[in-house]
């Protein structure tokens, strides 16, 4: 959107119209979820498990429980979204052109899709593995 026609005489070229504020809302909301997820995850993995590390049996056992599987899948999707959206913001602010921004945006979307699909498949496959 150019402002030259309104006679205010600015040479400023406006940025891309986005749903920026709604994106911020998603970032904040996902942040709240992550605090909850991470609290549960850290407690279960490092304190309540009785063992400082989650060994193969525990991980597979957990993932066989559909509730835990749903928990980890939601965690995976939300944390990847939050992280990659944050990285996108950082790259956006490095003073790159609008064209590069579009490339970065698509790159981030592609990386997100690949990561989420890989993570989901990994969880589903591991849930089917036999405990020795």
């Amino acid at each position, binding site marked *: *959107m150019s*402002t030259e026609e*309104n006679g*205010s*005489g*600015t*040479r*400023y*070229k*406006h*940025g*891309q*119209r*986005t*749903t*920026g*504020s*709604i*994106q*911020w*809302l998603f970032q904040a909301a996902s942040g709240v979820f992550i605090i909850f997820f991470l609290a549960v995850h850290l407690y279960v993995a490092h304190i309540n498990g009785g063992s400082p590390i989650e060994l193969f049996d525990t991980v597979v056992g957990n993932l066989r429980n559909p509730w835990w599987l749903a928990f980890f899948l939601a965690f995976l999707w939300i944390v990847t979204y939050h992280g990659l959206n944050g990285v996108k*913001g950082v790259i*956006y*602010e*490095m*003073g790159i052109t609008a064209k590069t*921004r579009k490339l970065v945006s698509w790159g981030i979307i592609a990386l997100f899709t690949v990561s989420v699909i890989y993570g989901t498949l990994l969880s589903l496959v591991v849930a089917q593995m036999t405990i020795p």
Partner: protein
Amino acid sequence: MVSENYEFVIKRKTEHGVSRQDRFLVPKKKISTVLEGLVYISENLDGTLSFRHSCRMEICGSCSMEINGKPKMACSTIAGSLGTGTIKVSPLPHYEVIKDLVVDIEPFFDKYRAVKPYVIRNNEDKPSSELLQTPEQFKLYEQYSMCIKCGLCLAACPISGSDEDYLGPAALAAALRFNLDSRDGGSGIRLEITDTDEGIARCHYAGECSEVCPKDVDPSKAIQLLRRAAISHELKKVFRRGAKGGK
């Protein structure tokens, strides 16, 4: 023994783009503010030193420069309060240097103009009388209307330092100032202008603009309030569209 002089270390650049550093000794008795020191230098020591100044009382916003590493107004910076005998003066960062301490402030004003910093009336008719406002309505935006366009906030903002198209604190604060004005009807337009990927989305509340603002406009606060308004504006749009689609 306490030195009788301030040592001014000035980062200069000729109009041909050659950079150098000059040192001047200015007697402490002769000056109180940094701006007076610069005036003393140009009158007595080196007439070629270029810098902008006008009102000497933090109203015109001309003498913005970096003093001892901080963006400041030279007129309101007391030399004695800096705590050092050496006063390092350099041009305002994040702007193109034209000569010595004079920077090209035009991008700042372009961004400022871009948010339509004037009262937008909904009806085209000329009002029959002046537009009245109660003191309470004035109080709503008074703080944000104190901006003197000195450009210090843009020099302090880390995002403006890396992303030169970012609208910047002053322009966004001006957008809020006119959105809060009871006479104004253009808040929707301004929210659309500022809610871009070069607008409020780029602010991450480092708050340095508010730290350096000589008039306590608190631009960082203004941007966050603008963000809230933009979110409700966007959500309203979504729901209105949803209601229309439902019918």
